[in-house]
Each structure stands twice: as C-alpha cells, then as structure tokens.
C-alpha cells in the first residue's frame, strides 16, 4: 500500500480506540483554537510554478503545505477580501449560504470526511464557518456590532492554512445539502474558497496540472492527438482478439451524426479502458454514425475545481468542436463531475447550442426531451432507451461471474438526478445485482473520498478515511450477498475505488457500467466468448468454472 497511508489494521485500531467527535468526545478547546497540522498523507502537492505560469495563475513559486512560510503574495489579505466581496456580489447562493445557517447540526455527521476522520472541522457546518467567521469580521451589518458574540475572527495566515486543509477535504459531493433544511450546499462554498485560494497561489498540482494539460492537448492526461488515436486503436485490437469483431471508430470526422466525448481516463487508465471497449462495442453493434475528437478529448473538467472561469474555458471546447465537425448532437460518456458541468453549467456558460439539433436517437427515434436545449445526452440514457426498445442483443449470463452492486456517483445523483437509467441498464446486462444499504445510495450516496481533484497518491491517508463510509457500505452488501463487483458510472470512481477496495475490501473489483454492457453484447460475427473484456474467464462457459449465482 501507499507510503502515504497507515496500514489498514492501524487505521482500524485508531477508529476503535481514539476518542473522536463522531463518538461523542468533544475537543477541550473551541474549534478555532485547534491547530492545523500538515503531515504525510493529508495534503496535496502544490501547483508547479511552470503549470501556474502556463495558466496565468497567481503567485507561481516552490512551496509545500508543511512549510512554516507559504510565501503568500504582498497584500494577500486585500486580495482575499476583494475576492470575497466580488463573489458575494455575483453569487446569491454564496451570500445566502453564509447568512442563513442556524447551526442546527443536521449536516454534521453526513460528510464522508467527518465520518472517516472525526475531525470537527470536517462537519460541513464548520467547514462553512471557516469562511463565515472571517466574513462576519470583515463585513458590516449582520452581527458585527457584537464581536466575539457572533464568533468572528481575523483573516490570518493560519486561517489560510486552515482553509487550504479543509477545502481540500471536501469533494464537493453535496451530500450535506440533501439534509440541510435550507439546502445550504457546501460544494458551493468550497468552490468559492478554492477560487479565493487560487488568487493567492494556494493550490493543488493534481488539479492544476490536468487543467493545464487539458487546455493544451485537449485532455487532462496530456495525451497528444497521435497517441490518443493509438491508444484507442490498441483497444480496437484487443476487442478483435477477444471477440473476433473489428470495431471502427473514427476521429475528428466532419459530418458524423454524433460527437462522442468521454473522460480521457477511459482512454488511458485501467480499468477505464474496459469501459471504453464497451462503448466501442455498443456503437458498432447499433451502427452509430459517430466520431471521437482528439481536440475535445476530455469529458471531465478539472477547471470546475479551480474557478468557474477555468471551468468555462475547458468546457468551451465541446461546443466549439461540435460546431466545427457539424454533428447533430453530443453523446457523453460515464463521468461524475463532467455531468455536473454538462447538466448544470454548460449551456449557461457556453450556449446556446443553436448549431446543434435536438437530440434524437437514430436507432429508436426517441427524442431526448430533457436534453432539448443543451443537446448532450448521457450514455446511460442512450443505452437505457436502446434496451427499452429491444434494440440490443444481450446475454446477461456473460456477466454471471460478477455479483454486482451499484455506486451512484455524487454528481450524477445530486447534481443531475439520474438514478433509474443506469440501474435499468445494469439489470439488463447482468443477473446478480444487489443494492447497498439505503442510507448509502441514490441521493444519499457516499463519495469515493477522492473526488474534486483529490485523487492523488500523496493524499492517500485522507482518501482512505474519506472513502471509508463507501467501503463500509460495500462490505455490508458483500457480507450479505457475496458481492464482488462495484459498478460505477464515473471515471474518477474507476480510478479511486480500486485502491479503496484493495484497502478496506480486498477482493472487490471496480467496473464501468458499459464494460458490463460490452461483456453482454452479442455481436454479429463474433467468435465464442469465454473471457470478459479484462480477460477474466466468464462463468459457466468452460467446465469447472460454474458459479451458480
């Protein structure tokens, strides 16, 4: 395991023995006096100077969170104050969420980071108080007249350290906002806080390097066009070897009906590539007229974890490319935060998409009325519609070696509201599917613990803690139903859940939904399939491998 995380037995022992607020042990000092301690495993490496220069971001320098002096720029307090003011002016949400919290505590034990660390400042209400306390001190009106009474404090370098720590222990998953009686959304507050921190050069390289890559090469992983094509072509070869079918994706082709965009993790990362193979098989199966772009080759958007301007900048490529290629509409792959951006931000930021047409499935004729304006359809919607109209030849037995459960990704659940389509697809492509406990799925789903740009090796300690509630839920369904496969529709999940499962639930593998679709598709002209897309043997195909599930 990573050198940045304790052994699982040590962490288990700590959970059981160490006093924590989760277990009812309050700290013996007010929260604002609790010192912030950076140590191995609880901070992300800061943005490299060249990355910041490339993006034109503030204060490029070499520094580390463990340094005493963070080399903040001259006049940083004013920068933060002005930045705060400007955001309060532009976002009603931000102002309102700072003003109306009554500190009822309903959110307190809803955050996966609080459940995994017991750290008071990981209660969503306190996370927001980190900013509120400064806001109350610096801004007139409200409760300023009675300082001390209202819990306000000065903006100091210590406060910035605290912000850096705790706004990078929030994955913008919005679970707290489900339970808040006023719908206060900590994701909104964290987004503002990260924008502010970026103004003074307090940042995270694992977010900014992908942003810079995406700006330059079109995708987070920094894959240049020829390599991008090569990678997909090698997947095409793998598919042919496994199934005997040659799929034929095209790239940057003008006049295609549909532009397909998916996170670059699906093109480059294991196990994302198997999901990519699933898409390619599906499109071949139905004869879709589609193309993949090497320029708009990223579905995800790490700009979202930087600032709303950066989000817009990266997102703009999707419509720009769709327009250039003259496609009718865009089909989007499996990803979480990508769909938060596409569903709730894209058309507002970069629309109107009047150069596209209202999406209609060329196979079933279904109009995707809920995507009428943005003109981008989620692959799970697309596939669910195909299955509903019986346009796919599926053999779910081919997934009999997998006993599945489904992980709702945060953004799809709470920032889009798509729950049924992926489940419908999953039920049709495999025979064994069991839900995790009800407080851990659908709108109450738990984050993988590594979302919003925290999926980095040096942050492993916090990731394993933050992922604990999800892992715990998987353990429960596993004990009850011998579940061995965790199916997701999110590229970050596909990257972050494998180490989480290895840590807490060894023996559980992570799959993309369309990987299972790819396994189950009965392709025309295929050879006898005995192995799934990751070359694991299917059950019941050869003797002695029966799993009577």
């Amino acid at each position: 395991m990573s050198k940045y995380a304790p052994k699982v037995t040590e962490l288990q022992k700590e959970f059981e023995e160490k006093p924590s607020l989760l277990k009812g042990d309050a700290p013996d000092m007010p929260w604002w006096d609790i010192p912030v301690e950076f140590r191995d495993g609880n901070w992300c490496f800061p943005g490299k100077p060249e990355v910041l220069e490339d993006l034109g971001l503030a204060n490029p320098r070499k520094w580390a969170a463990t340094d005493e002096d963070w080399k903040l720029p001259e006049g940083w307090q004013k920068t933060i104050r002005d930045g705060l003011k400007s955001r309060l002016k532009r976002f009603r949400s931000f102002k309102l969420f700072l003003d109306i919290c009554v500190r009822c505590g309903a959110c307190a034990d809803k955050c996966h980071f609080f459940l995994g660390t017991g750290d008071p400042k990981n209660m969503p209400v306190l996370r927001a108080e980190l900013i509120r306390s400064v806001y109350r001190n610096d801004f007139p009106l409200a409760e300023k007249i009675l300082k001390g009474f209202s819990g306000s404090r000065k903006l100091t370098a210590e406060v910035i350290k605290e912000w850096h720590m705790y706004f990078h222990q929030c994955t913008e998953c919005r679970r707290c906002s489900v339970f808040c009686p006023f719908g206060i959304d900590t994701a909104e507050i964290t987004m503002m806080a990260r924008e502010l921190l970026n103004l003074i050069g307090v940042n995270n390289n694992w977010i900014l390097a992908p942003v810079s890559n995406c700006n330059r090469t079109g995708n987070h992983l920094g894959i240049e066009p020829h390599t991008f094509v090569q990678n997909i072509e090698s997947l095409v070869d793998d598919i042919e070897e496994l199934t005997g079918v040659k799929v034929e994706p095209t790239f940057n082709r003008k006049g295609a009906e549909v532009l397909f965009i998916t996170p670059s993790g699906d093109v480059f990362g294991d196990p994302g590539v198997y999901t990519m193979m699933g898409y390619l098989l599906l499109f071949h199966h139905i004869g879709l007229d589609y193309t993949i772009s090497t320029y708009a080759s990223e579905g995800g958007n790490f700009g979202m974890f930087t600032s709303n301007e950066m989000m817009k900048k990266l997102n703009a490529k999707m419509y720009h490319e769709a327009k250039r290629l003259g496609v009718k509409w865009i089909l989007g792959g499996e990803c979480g935060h990508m769909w938060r951006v596409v569903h709730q931000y894209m058309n507002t930021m970069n629309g109107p998409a009047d150069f596209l047409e209202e999406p209609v499935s060329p196979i079933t004729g279904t109009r995707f009325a809920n995507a009428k304006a943005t003109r981008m359809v989620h692959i799970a919607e697309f596939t669910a519609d195909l299955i509903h109209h019986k346009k796919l030849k599926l053999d779910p037995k081919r997934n009999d070696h997998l006993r599945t459960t489904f992980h709702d990704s945060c953004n799809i659940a709470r920032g889009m509201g798509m729950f049924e389509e992926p489940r419908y697809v999953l039920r049709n492509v495999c025979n064994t599917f069991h839900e995790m406990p009800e407080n851990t799925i659908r709108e109450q789903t738990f984050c993988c613990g590594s979302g919003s740009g925290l999926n980095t090796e040096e942050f492993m300690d916090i990731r394993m803690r933050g992922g604990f509630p999800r892992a715990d839920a998987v353990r429960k369904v596993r004990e009850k139903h011998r579940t061995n496969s965790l199916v997701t529709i999110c590229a970050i999940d596909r990257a972050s859940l494998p180490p989480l499962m290895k840590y807490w639930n060894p023996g559980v593998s992570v799959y993309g939904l369309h990987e299972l679709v790819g396994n189950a598709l009965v392709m025309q002209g295929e050879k006898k399939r005995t192995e799934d897309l990751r070359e694991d043997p299917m059950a019941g195909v050869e003797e002695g491998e029966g799993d009577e599930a």
Partner: protein
Amino acid sequence: MKKVLMPLLMVAVLALVPYLGVTYAGLGYLFGVVIPYASAVVLVGGFLFRLADWLRRPVPFRIPTTCGQERSFDWIRQNPVESPSNFWQTAVRVLSEVLLFRSLFRNTKAELHGGPKLAYGSNKWLWLGGLAFHWSLLVIVLRHARFFFIMMPGPIQLIDDFDRFLDVTVPAFYLTDAVVLAAVTFLVLRRFQDAKVRVISLPTDFFPLFLISGIVLAGVSMRYVTKVNVMPVKDLMLRLVQFGFDPPAEIGALFYVHLFLVCVLMVYFPFSKLMHMGGIFLSPTRNLPNNSREKRHVNPWNPDIKFRTYAEYEDDYREKMKKANLPVEKQ
C-alpha cells in the same frame, strides 16, 4: 460555558431594563410606545432590506440539489418533488421545506461501532422539535391578533379555539404555550447534550433561544400566574396599530418585560441568523427546477473567456496529426 452564560446574562439584563424603567423611572411611554414603534420599523425595514439585498444578487447557475429521479423517459417515473422540472413542482418542493421541513425529516444519526462499522439510525427528534417550535410560535403570534383587532378575524378565532380545546382551566389553557416551552427546552438541551452541536454552537445560537424563552415565560406568567388585566393592554395595542401616540394606561411591569423582549427580538431579527425565515424561500438548491438541459439558464454576468481554439490546437499538432492520418483543416 461562556458562550451560554453570556447570552443568558444578556437576556436577563434586557428583561430587567423595562422592569426597572417602568417601575422606578416611570418610562411607560418609552417602553409602551416609542420602542415598539422603533422596533417595528427596524423589523420591517431590515427584513425588506435583507431580502432585497439577496434578490439583487444574481443566480448565475441553475444548481438544484437533486434528491430524486429527474424527468427523462415516459417509462421512468420522475420524482416531481425532489427533482422538479417545472414551476409548480418546484413550488411544492419549496413549500414542503417551509411548512413541513421536508429535508430535515430525512435526518439520520451516524454511529461508529467496533469493527469498525458505521450504522445509520433514523433521527427525527430535531425535525419534530423544530416543527413543534416553529408551528407553535406561528400559532401564538397569530392568536395575539386578539390584541390588535376589536373583533378577532374568523380564521384566527378558529386557530384560537383549536389551541384552547383543552378548556379545563381558567383562563383557558393554550396548548401551544406548553408545546413551545417543551420545544425550546429541547432545542437548548440538544445544544448541550450532542457533542457535535455543542462544538458548533455560538452565543448567537443561544441568544435567540433564551430570548424567546424569556418572552414566552413572561407571557405565560402574565396569563396564568399574575393574571394581568388585558383591557389596558388591548387598548394600548389597538392604538398602536392605528398609529396613535397616546400614553398607555397603568399596566403591570411584567407586561413591559414581555413587550420589550419582543421588541429586542424584532430589532435583532434582520441582523441575525433568524433571517433564515426569508432565506429559505430563496435557496437556489431548492427553488429552481431541475431542467437546465431542457431550458437554457442565463447568467447575467457570463464572462468572456479566451479558450484554446481548434485552430490553435491544430497549429501545434498538425504534423503529428497528419502522421496519425487525422484530417486537418490546413495542410
């Protein structure tokens, strides 16, 4: 403990001020006429200012928290309240938050057990206590209309009758008096009892609870213990709502304590977290339909951003693209 004692002491001092003022300094006019008018102005003006202050700030993005299935195919059942797609469904969502505290009803309590294992238990006490508190306060405020009208309006009479249905004492016992006292006690106690809530509580969380307790206690004592003569009270209130400035007749000092604490609450209201009363209607995660892919939401300050265009990209990678047999715009 300072954060509890400070607000408690403040409420005690605030209660003492009108008592001393009226009993020893004869300031009945100040506490009975001047301060109530001033407080009402602050409440109304302040509340409207805060609302306007929120409303003038734009909502750049459509960011509902979706807590149920979105509208998609006709063979998939939408959850119209938790993922509304039009105005009326959204109105139901907001009103169910305002009137029934729908989101709070979901509340659970997480516990870490040996193993380690997490368990989530249903935990509706906060919902119940909060609902009882707010609803009984509303009923109490409404039935105070008896002091502002010569004849009680019908619907309010009905509420009043309902509240008094346990008509066994003289004067008749109001159910809400008991409920609000129980609820406020619960809301105070949970701020001590639950370690998490103890950590997050500020003096500004205790102050309104103590203030409201003080108001209720003064009111209840007047009605059931000292049995204040209500005629001069009604007389004063009727004149106040008709914008009269005549000095009040002789009323017991306890009444002035009650009235003054209400005035303090009115003044405190617009400057404090109590504004959640207005804010709950404006929360963008609850009051917007989840239809952002169906209908374009406009951001009034949508910034112009320079992004890297395809042409710039091709200029950088043209040779590599050609080698990979990718079509290019320029040779």
